[in-house]
């Protein structure tokens, strides 16, 4: 079924193009939006993907599923957009990645780990996030944190244990692949 559409598309059949468009456009747009996190730009880029599909139709391999082909173009479009954005930011003097250190062998996955932890920490309620940061990133003792925030030491311990519970799952997964 799909194979026929691809053949027709390759032969320049616009009807087949519309069919494929209606089946895949939303997926392409959602996928790009998930990567670049901007809906307006995702619409633009998703349209570019299909313009490319149409203009390069003669080069399509009819033996491969069209979904895989669209996935590849969509991914490249999104990645190119991000690369472009990065260059632009560096040019404007705004570069949050300046402090990126080259990763030594033993810290191979540390960067992935810290990104995951950052996402999870950001999802915590404000109080818990504050306590976690004071404890793990600033290295303060539970007693000092309790004093600083004007709460009981017990509360600090409870909040920390809740925070660590969430992180433990991921850290275990991490260790599992290391040891």
């Amino acid at each position, binding site marked *: 079924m799909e194979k026929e559409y691809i053949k027709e598309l390759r032969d320049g059949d616009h009807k087949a193009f519309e069919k494929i468009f209606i089946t895949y456009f939303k997926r392409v747009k959602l996928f790009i939006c*998930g990567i670049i996190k901007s809906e307006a730009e995702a619409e633009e880029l998703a349209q570019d993907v299909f313009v490319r599909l149409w203009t390069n139709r003669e080069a399509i391999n009819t033996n491969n599923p069209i979904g895989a082909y669209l996935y590849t173009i969509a991914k490249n479009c999104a990645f190119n957009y991000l690369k472009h954005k990065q260059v632009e930011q560096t040019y404007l003097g705004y570069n949050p990645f300046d402090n990126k250190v080259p990763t030594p062998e033993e810290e191979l996955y540390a960067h992935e780990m810290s990104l995951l932890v950052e996402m999870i920490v950001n999802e915590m309620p404000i109080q818990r996030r504050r306590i976690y940061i004071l404890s793990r990133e600033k290295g303060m003792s539970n007693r000092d944190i309790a004093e600083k925030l004007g709460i009981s030491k017990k509360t600090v311990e409870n909040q920390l244990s809740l925070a660590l519970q969430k992180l433990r799952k991921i850290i275990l997964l991490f260790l599992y692949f290391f040891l």
Partner: protein
Amino acid sequence: MKNYIHELITRYFSKRHNPETEIKIQQWLIDDEFSQEKDKALSQVWEKLSVKNDKAVYQSLKEINAKIGMRSYRSWFIKHTLPRVAAVLIPLLAIAGVWLYQSTHINMIEVVTLAGEQKEIRLPDGSTVWLNACSKINYHEKFSDSLRNVTLTGEAYFSVVRNARKRFEVTTKDITVEVLGTQFNVKAYPDDELVTTTLTIGKVAVQAFEEKYTLRSNQELVYNVANKSAVVQGISDNSTNWRDGSIIFNELTMNQIFKELERRFDVKFNYIGTLLPDDKYSIKFTNKENINQILNVFQDVTSGGFTYTTNGKNIIITIK
């Protein structure tokens, strides 16, 4: 490790995150390291996306046909698709009509903080705003195509998602701050004489009275409402730390300090005698001190220049 990268990518896809975190992950994504594992995880995300078509797809189709110089096949459409979709399309059009009608009435959102309160707000474009005490912001439920505008009274810290095609603008009574994407603080309380814009990183433009100023990293612009003059200076201290509960006074008179304390602690000062002269004070409270501890410090600093009695939220200051 593959599961690990998979976990990172699916979590990233599941929703919006902090703007800074999103930028870091995007940077990691396009890095060539582990590109095979990333590709595998991404293609799994692609497969699992749950997709539901809506009328927007047909609008996009129209746009794309215009781009590739084709028109929809009307005869094909009428013969094959129209009878089947008519039953769906007619109610859909009715809904679209209602939606169009409503979308011309875009709702205005207002967020207000009371004295002693702070709030964290996520804007429609994913930018984040931290609102300090006694402040208010207004913005449209959906930003326009060319501009993201927020109106501010009081103090707020902005972390703006970068979008070069859509300027971000903060309007206050006396100044307007324009950015493409960065982090900055604006303090514009209606009863303060000074309006301060503080920039942590990047670049912003500030329109004050009839002049336009450009700020760079670690600079602030202090605009004096009374005599309409502006000064650009380096940041001597991180005055945007109020978000973690710190209270920082930088070269302020007692009058200005007491105003700030009223906002931060939800108290009201009544004065017996006139407030102290124009001496300026710089002082930091970073340990969650309460109002009494702070007033005691100021008593010491002014060498016992005043005494105070507390009566609920009212504090009577007797100046010696």
